[in-house]
């Protein structure tokens, strides 16, 4: 009964945001295809090298590793950790995961929970949506990347499986973000409050990891950022991503879901 109710509620959420969801998924796909075509304009990393050679030496050192972004190996991964893609994907996950706060804000939560809907089944519906979004958004990026690569003549040295593993890292990250958003949604009186709390946690975390990628001075705190555990950066550098790196993200997701369920089970609504 609970699983059936969770499915009904998940369908309710998906139906509510179906237009936006379709637009975002299409956008992610096109975005990744576009990145590959842009990389082709620079003849992959080699073409970009000519541009970089014209820059002062400091900038040449700074962007040396980033040249791989324009290689066939790196371009797909670049889409995976691009700030635009990351912002869009995390926002979509947050939109669904903060559903508790949205229902509370609209006065719908009490009416739903007065029906034979258990609190576990209610949160289960949201978790189902988060899992679906965490799977389908990276899949669209991956699909777009693969389609783009099939359309251009860039040499590929990283096998497809490496990109899939990098995509799994993104799945784990989105699950962790979903967990944090779910927790915020359970506590917050309104969706805006929940999203603000989430942004206050995620934006600094992203900046810590992003700056840490360029400057070793951030190494002491990088482990605190969920973005640190996403293995697309090793993929970008031509290294094998490690599945072990996903565990902190999956544990964070599980911990947040458990805390949210505990809080929701004992709260007034």
């Amino acid at each position: 009964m609970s699983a059936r109710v969770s499915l009904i509620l998940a369908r309710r959420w998906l139906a509510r945001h179906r237009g936006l969801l379709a637009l975002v998924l299409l956008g992610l796909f096109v975005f990744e295809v576009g990145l590959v075509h842009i990389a082709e304009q620079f003849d992959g990393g080699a073409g970009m090298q000519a541009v970089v050679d014209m820059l002062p030496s400091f900038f040449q050192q700074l962007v040396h590793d980033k040249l791989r972004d324009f290689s066939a190996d790196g371009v797909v991964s670049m889409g995976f950790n691009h700030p635009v893609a990351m912002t869009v994907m995390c926002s979509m996950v947050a939109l669904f995961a903060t559903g508790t706060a949205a229902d509370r804000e609209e006065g719908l939560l009490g009416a739903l929970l007065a029906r034979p809907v258990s609190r576990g089944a209610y949160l289960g519906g949201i978790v189902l949506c988060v899992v679906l979004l965490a799977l389908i958004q990276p899949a669209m990026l991956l699909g777009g990347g693969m389609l783009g690569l099939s359309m251009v003549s860039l040499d590929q040295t990283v096998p497809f499986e490496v990109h899939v593993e990098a995509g799994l890292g993104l799945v784990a990250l989105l699950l962790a973000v979903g967990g944090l958003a779910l927790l915020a949604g359970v506590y917050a009186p309104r969706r805006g409050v929940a999203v603000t709390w989430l942004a206050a946690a995620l934006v600094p975390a992203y900046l810590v990891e992003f700056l840490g990628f360029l400057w070793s001075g951030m190494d002491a705190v990088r482990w605190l950022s969920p973005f640190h555990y996403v293995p697309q950066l090793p993929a970008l550098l031509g290294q094998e991503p490690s599945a072990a790196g996903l565990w902190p993200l999956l544990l964070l997701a599980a911990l947040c879901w458990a805390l949210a369920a505990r809080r929701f089970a004992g709260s007034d609504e």
Partner: protein
Amino acid sequence: MADTLLALSGLSKRFGDVLALDDLTLDVSRGEVVGLLGPNGAGKTTAIRLALGLAVPTAGSVRLFGRSPREAAARAGLGYLPGELALDPRLDGHAMLALNARLHAPGDAPPDATRVGELCERLGLSHADLSRPVRDDSSGTRQKLGLVAAWQHDPELLLLDEPTNALDPLVREAVFELLREAAAAGKAVLHSSHVLSEVDRSCNSVAVLRGGRLVERGSVSELRRRLTRHMLVRFRGAPPVAALSAAGAVILERDGARLVLQVAGALDPLLAVLASHPVDELAFPEPDLSAAFAHWYGDAAREARS
């Protein structure tokens, strides 16, 4: 199944420093339409939210169909209309009722279209009303949708918080009729309201809350009997003042042979006095609950003013 469908026992709820409900004990049984009366802030909505499991009591317990209301299965036989009705503005009436039916269906049983159709017809909801997004509906149409949603799965117990809000008189009549039919069919209803005349018409018993406490509980007829009432009598000749006082009547006004009496409790001694004296005129109006309301809340109003 036991006759008591809802049992609130020693129920209290505190929000910070505010004691919203204080030691409320109240049962709602099959065939009963209980009016939960009280002014705004008396604790009616808090009591209903506790009964639904939407809030956790500070003290006391709630049994809904013999189970904790926090269990989803306990709410399967329940119909609920909130006082501040919120419906998903993106859905139209059909989609809203279909979602509600799926959440109440024990399996994948399809919604009972016949019952929904009958309810819509009685409450004056047209196909066009049901086809519009809820955000475009008037408050009256939304209230009707809320009533259909509360009733559509033929619940054993109905918790209705101000069910006639925003309804026109004809639809109110339909709601009262549905309430009477529910009671006749052995269902139970808790009808929260601050509109006395509605409770007087629709309920066969009343629970009165004041400041979070239950101040009165009984059948409407019992309460009427216990009320202080006024009687106007014009005697043909000198009024038997001493005999009237001995029979328990208090003379409020006297204008020659015309008296306004205040009477309470059993009427037999007073009627015996009246029967033994010639009377030209007698008026003894049926008391309504408004007299009781003034009695119950008069103190509260005075306290508020002082």
